[in-house]
């Protein structure tokens, strides 16, 4: 048994290196002038935040980002729930085909996804081009970058994830719940709203949170498919990193993290009372 205890050494080193230190350094860069290229100074200051909050631009961007990602998450869930319900009712073969397709789609890099959509929405080679060739519409430019394009690709990116995560709880739903409701005379809409949705409310919240976290942490889709006025705050963080404005990047990343935690906290407070009352 003693031998097993040796395993804790590399484990703890690993956890310190990738879970603890990064957060500490984040706080350090946010509250100091360090740019992580020389000696570390320990002069804590709020100068970085002063720069960020100088005008309301970044604050507005933060609210915009959170609102946008919430909307995308909602759309994703609205699509994912019926899709997952339908897939769960398929036979073994088709269910497996769907899962293979979903996993492969989910695994695809956001860079490659963005590239694929840029082709699809391009004036010459994509959908606009075909519609023009069919004489249906006149196109003067590609459909990207634009707000709808960005939103569509954001939904595209997280919907396979949502379906996969919802697959397990939905396929575990007891069919006799819906069946007993039918014997009592209820129709499919009522059954869906009153029986199925409440039964999966906890997995739904979990899935929503996962999609929220996934989208809020990526910048490629927003940067490539949206115009600068559509950019999420993560794009600016990446930008600061590329231009070596380390302290600003650190403070903005910390701000993003803090906002996300506040949102999570708010959601927990909203969901907990329901769970307790139920």
């Amino acid at each position, binding site marked *: 048994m003693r031998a097993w205890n040796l395993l804790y050494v590399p484990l703890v080193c690993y956890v310190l*290196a990738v879970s603890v230190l990064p957060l500490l350094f984040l706080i350090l860069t946010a509250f100091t002038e360090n740019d992580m290229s020389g000696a570390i100074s320990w002069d804590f200051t709020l100068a970085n935040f002063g720069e960020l909050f100088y005008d309301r631009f970044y604050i507005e961007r933060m609210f915009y980002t959170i609102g946008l990602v919430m909307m995308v998450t909602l759309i994703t869930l609205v699509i994912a729930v019926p899709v997952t319900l339908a897939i769960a009712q398929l036979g073994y073969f088709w269910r497996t085909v769907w899962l293979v397709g979903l996993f492969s789609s989910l695994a695809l890099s956001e860079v490659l996804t963005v590239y694929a959509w840029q*082709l699809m929405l391009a004036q010459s080679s994509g959908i606009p081009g075909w519609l023009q060739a069919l004489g249906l519409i006149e196109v003067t430019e590609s459909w990207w970058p634009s707000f709808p394009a960005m939103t569509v690709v954001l939904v595209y990116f997280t919907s396979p994830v949502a379906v996969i995560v919802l697959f397990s709880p939905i396929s575990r739903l007891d069919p006799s719940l819906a069946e007993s409701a039918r014997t009592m005379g209820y129709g499919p809409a009522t059954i869906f709203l009153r029986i199925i949705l409440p039964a999966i409310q906890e997995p739904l919240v979990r899935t929503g949170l996962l999609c929220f976290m996934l989208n809020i942490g990526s910048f490629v889709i927003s940067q490539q498919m949206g115009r600068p006025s559509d950019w999420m705050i993560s794009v600016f963080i990446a930008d600061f*990193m590329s231009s070596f404005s380390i302290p600003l990047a650190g403070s903005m990343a910390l701000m993003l993290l803090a906002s996300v935690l506040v949102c999570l906290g708010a959601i927990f407070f909203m969901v907990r009372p329901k769970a307790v009352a139920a």
Partner: protein
Amino acid sequence: MKKLLQILGLGAFALFLYMPIFVVSGSSLNSSRQMVFPPEDPGFTWYIAFFNDPAWVSALTTSIVIAVCSSFIATTLATVVAYLLWRRQSRLHEYLYRAVLTPFLLPGIVFAVSLSFVIAALGIMGTKLAIIIGHAAVIIAIPLVTINLGFSLVSKEQIEAARTMGVREFQLLPMVLVPMIRPYVLTGALFALIISMNEYVVAFLLSGFSVETLPIKVYNSQRYGFTPTLSVGTVLYMTFSLVVFTILAMTGRLYSLLGIEEKRH
């Protein structure tokens, strides 16, 4: 009626998911530099060009090397964590489990930025090692979930039955546990590998302009206009994923990625 709606709905969703892939695949078969769909004069010209271009081959190789290493590290660590958690269930181990999962749970850009500070402080910015560490930290969640599932399916009674059959304490691991969790380890490792190959944000921030994985190269190349070589990369990656997941499906291991043990109906 309901069935028809369901089939139509699923069809629409499938179209939505795979239409872009289809378009990209088609464009990769163009013979000229034009990115037209349907492809004019289809052929494998650009596939040959891709494999003849040392920059692209290097990017692909770099991605694969990083993926194999990070997946190996992540899977090994995940096995250890999962085993310790199963063996000695305690609060402390739960905290360890959550600490290991933290990088995955953070918003991607936040973790990548924070980790880059640590990497810079360690002086290994811009190396393959840095990206391997970064990827391992994020993808470890995957084998952790699958191997945890594997361990959870080992019942106390199976261990007790083995003991009644004369299996000694030190034989339990090799004779009983390893065969039982091996498939879950492999499944987790493969999925982690694929995610690492495709990962962009962490790789981008830790690459320091000296390391180029395939996603990084695709991103950088986009500003120079599209060529079918970009599509070739996409098609290669997509095909690899489809093949791996199909193999996992055929060996019945796919469902363990969902965290469920599924019986064939």
